[in-house]
């Protein structure tokens, strides 16, 4: 009996062998899409929609061939080679410069002017900078010094983001960099922070998005961009408060020299003009970066945390920074510490006792107090829940199920904020795959643009015009002024103005009216021409929106496509009435090159009645698909 059942079991195992191993493999990360009634291809499309900026043509096939779980694991490793991207980024000058080199090469206009006055190039009594003669002098001066305009820096910053979004092989890393930058938002609208934003994303965000939360927290806390943006660089012990340095000198003086001699210790000069604590970083650290607004801290905790971070500041380039550095080298042993641009100033750090969230920080502490606060905050249960909620909102739905948030919270606590484990936990959650979550997120303008460029397999020759569309649709890159970052919910992205611009974006992109973006619609369909408007619609909707249920979209789009094709004939005929326009492709059938011909010439602004090549009906159909409700969702 027993033997028989064992044999029976063995037989079953043998028979199911190949399937069982696949099941085991699936269980490693166990993506439960089948339970949600999805095919492998549909699941691949969802992965590419959420963990990448949308699918490229043929990409679903590749992900399925690789295996969904393997694809995700490879993305979690973040080390796919970047052949194409490297070449695309190569012309950018700033990406490899240190933040100090950037700040030196791209000084703000105020800094240039002050230096020009110091060096006698212009005088204080010259007319203001907006007058031509002064401007010319300053430009010549900046050129001699090798300074570059900050506009170039911010343009490269935005360019690299767009190129990475479109071309990076490490899709998940890009999506996460976008998420974590927004979580720890800084803004180029802030003059002081602006030169440091590029290195902030590169050095403080990117290296840690597949690491641990604590490391992100540390890196952002010490980066000049954050220290300047949320004013911690100016936060100092209030007047008369014992500082780390005064305490050290007192102790030493008492032992060696007597109190009156302590002034000979050379305290560094260049003390910030505004004395006193600034609470901004402390407050946002708890409210936005870690605990969340209802995370259980008080205003007193904000003040105490601000006191802990007094003296955490920036060593800026320029004469003042150089003077400070010189003094620092002589202030050995007084508790100062430097690390790149970061500077801990023992002479402005409040060294008296603090009590934070019930924990006592005894008097006499220095820089390590800040690290201890970051530790406390990173392992606080409120932080786990806050981060879990934000991740669930980003990757699953604007209103995520409590069960999902609970699971992610637990995962955060069990793994001490392992960000990779959190992504895995999301992908293995049934909530991620459920019907309710599907297509429930509205793409941000950046997601819309990158996913459209990917869907059309577009060549980004010149990124600036398309980046302007991202701005027009309501997401100026790196320029959200508030430390909250862009709100991550549909209502924030979809308002009357931005929605119309989404439609316009679709039409302009497909018609080849966004300069610098080149693609070829017929090639997408392997050069085959659709036989009719309806066929074009069906073919291209499936190409641009792979693996989606397109019944509704096609039903709605068919009359639209007809109207468009028809209107086009009307316009063209109207044009022939008044002028002879250059050879314009007229209907689907008589075009052989699609919009490629349009793309070759940079498009001029379109003026009514001027001789302009009409966009082809095919381009219009694709434009409408890109502007349609379905393409706005992921």
């Amino acid at each position, binding site marked *: 009996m027993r033997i028989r059942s064992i044999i029976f079991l063995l037989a079953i195992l043998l028979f199911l062998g190949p399937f069982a191993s696949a099941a085991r493999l699936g269980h490693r990360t166990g993506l439960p899409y089948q339970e949600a009634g999805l095919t492998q291809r549909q699941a691949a499309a969802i992965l590419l929609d959420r963990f990448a900026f949308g699918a490229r043509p043929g990409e679903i096939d590749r992900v399925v061939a690789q295996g969904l779980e393997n694809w995700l694991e490879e993305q979690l490793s973040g080390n796919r080679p970047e052949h194409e991207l490297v070449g695309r980024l190569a012309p950018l000058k700033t990406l490899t410069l240190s933040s100090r080199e950037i700040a030196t090469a791209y000084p703000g206009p105020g800094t240039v002017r002050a230096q020009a006055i110091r060096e006698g190039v212009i005088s204080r009594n010259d007319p203001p900078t907006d007058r031509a003669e002064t401007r010319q002098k300053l430009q010549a001066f900046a050129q001699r010094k090798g300074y570059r305009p900050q506009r170039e820096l911010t343009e490269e910053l935005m360019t690299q983001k767009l190129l990475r979004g479109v071309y990076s092989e490490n899709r998940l890393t890009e999506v996460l960099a976008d998420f974590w930058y927004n979580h720890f938002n800084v803004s180029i609208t802030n003059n002081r922070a602006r030169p440091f934003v590029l290195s902030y994303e590169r050095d403080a965000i990117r290296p840690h998005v597949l690491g641990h939360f604590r490391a992100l927290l540390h890196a952002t806390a010490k980066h000049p961009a954050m220290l300047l943006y949320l004013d911690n660089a100016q936060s100092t012990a209030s007047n008369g408060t014992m500082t780390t340095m005064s305490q050290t000198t007192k102790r030493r003086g008492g032992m060696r020299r007597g109190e009156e001699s302590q002034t000979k210790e050379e305290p560094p000069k260049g003390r910030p003009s505004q004395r006193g604590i600034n609470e901004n970083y402390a407050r946002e650290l708890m409210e936005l970066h870690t605990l969340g607004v209802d995370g259980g801290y008080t205003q007193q905790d904000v003040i105490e945390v601000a006191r802990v971070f007094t003296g955490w500041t920036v060593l800026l380039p320029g004469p003042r920074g150089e003077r400070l550095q010189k003094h620092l080298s002589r202030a050995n042993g007084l508790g100062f510490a430097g690390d790149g641009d970061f500077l801990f100033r023992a002479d402005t750090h409040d060294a008296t006792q603090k009590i934070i969230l019930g924990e006592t920080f005894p008097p006499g502490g220095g820089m390590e107090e800040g690290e201890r606060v970051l530790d406390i905050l990173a392992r606080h249960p409120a932080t786990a829940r806050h981060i879990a909620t934000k991740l669930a909102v980003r990757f699953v739905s604007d209103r995520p199920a409590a069960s999902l948030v609970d699971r992610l919270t637990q995962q955060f606590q069990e793994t001490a904020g392992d960000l990779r484990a959190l992504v895995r936990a999301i992908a293995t959650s049934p909530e991620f795959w459920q019907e309710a979550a599907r297509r429930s997120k509205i793409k941000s303008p950046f997601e819309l643009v990158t996913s459209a460029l990917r869907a059309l397999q577009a060549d980004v020759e010149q990124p600036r015009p398309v980046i302007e569309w991202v701005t027009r649709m309501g997401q100026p890159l790196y320029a959200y002024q508030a430390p909250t970052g862009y709100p991550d919910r549909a*209502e924030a992205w979809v308002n009357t103005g931005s*929605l119309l611009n989404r439609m316009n974006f679709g039409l302009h992109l497909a018609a080849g009216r966004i300069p610098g973006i080149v693609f070829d619609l017929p090639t997408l369909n392997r050069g085959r021409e659709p036989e009719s408007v309806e066929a074009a619609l069906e073919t291209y909707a499936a190409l641009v929106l792979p693996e989606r249920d397109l019944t509704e979209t096609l039903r709605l789009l068919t009359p*639209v496509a007809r109207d468009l094709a028809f*209107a086009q004939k009307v316009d063209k005929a*109207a044009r022939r009435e008044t002028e002879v326009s250059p050879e314009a492709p007229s209907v689907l059938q008589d075009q052989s090159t699609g919009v490629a011909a349009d793309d070759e010439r940079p498009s001029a602004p379109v003026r009514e009645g001027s001789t302009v090549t009409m*966009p082809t009906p095919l381009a219009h159909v694709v434009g409408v698909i890109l502007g349609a409700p379905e393409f706005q969702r992921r």
Partner: protein
Amino acid sequence: MWTRRAFLKAGGIALFAAGFGGSPAFLRRAAAASTQPGLAPRRKVLVTVFQRGAMDGLMAVPPFTDPMLPKLRPRLAMTAARSAGEGALTDLNGHFGLHPALTPVVPLFREERLAIVHGVGSPDPTRSHFDAQDYMETGTPGRKGTPSGWLNRAVGQLGHEGSPWRAVAVTSALPRSLYGDAPALAVANLEEFGVRPAGGKELARVASQSFEDLYQQTSADLLRRTAHESFEAVKLLSRPEITRYRPAKGAEYPRTPLGRSLRQIAQLIKAEAGLEVGFAESGGWDTHVQQGTTTGSFARQAQDLARAITAFWTDLERHQDDVVLLTMTEFGRSVRENGSGGTDHGRASCLFVLGNPVEGGRVYGTVPSLAPDALEEGRDLPVTTDFRGVFSEVAGKHLGIARDEILFPGWAGARFRLLRA
């Protein structure tokens, strides 16, 4: 020769017959009785102008009888003496004068529609433009994390159905003042609002109609609702008050960004598109260098401001009763002129409030003697009126908002009386 319209009527149908079966939706609709978009009910309108860069309140509205002024500002102080002719200040009340470049607004002041509040500023002493603007726009001095702007919260308190054009910034990006949950639009140019494909007019009309149909039938709720509002907004713009807009007689807007912004805000108001909160801005007030007196960088900006505001007011015509305009700037400038013939970042400045409900013709607020011991830190005009007192008075009374704690969370001060109840 055929007119374009005639062609569309005849030739269009012919083409259609040759091309497709079934009648295109847009022609059916065109044939149906054209319905005018419904007018929004007339509402009170608050228009704010942010003067970015920090306007020198002591040059705009100088206390010219203070003997310290010419001492501290040897190159910048001006006189109200008639002997100075065109370059003289307008004597407003025997103590305060008005910069000659602001002369266009003098009649509004004399008619008691324009009030000036002096010594206005923020309790937060920051001298950073970025921070001070941020604090003024969020309405929470000292707090950067406030997610919304005070104007957006004001919109949220209006308490009635709003038009898609309810809250509009005529700027390229949404200003911090309008960040928040209430729908708000940033439109740099009304002419570019709508569905505008490359190609012909007909194509644009059809594309627009197509998207409207498409979004009307989508199952995604938010997209459907918002699209509906968007196309309503577009239709409101198709009203002749917008498309064939000519400013009222005598309203000559300066050809400057501010002039263009206020002109478009006037367009929206006169088209009765439902505007309730309008936002415009003007730059160039950061006069560190060669500020000038009757001419120079300050005078240029001041003239732009005065001409834009007066043109706007004239242009409003019968809508004047509905509108109050409020200017604001992040801080004032140092009382003492600097070594470059300019002024540096200071504390208090002044602001202007224009409208028929305003008890105008007066300079409100407290400006102490400019003797150094009366100044903040011995150098700056002290803030004697919290900007929130003025903003809550103007927005509260004019728009009928009772809850100041929503507009300015954490503030328990009193409104600064300026408007008739």
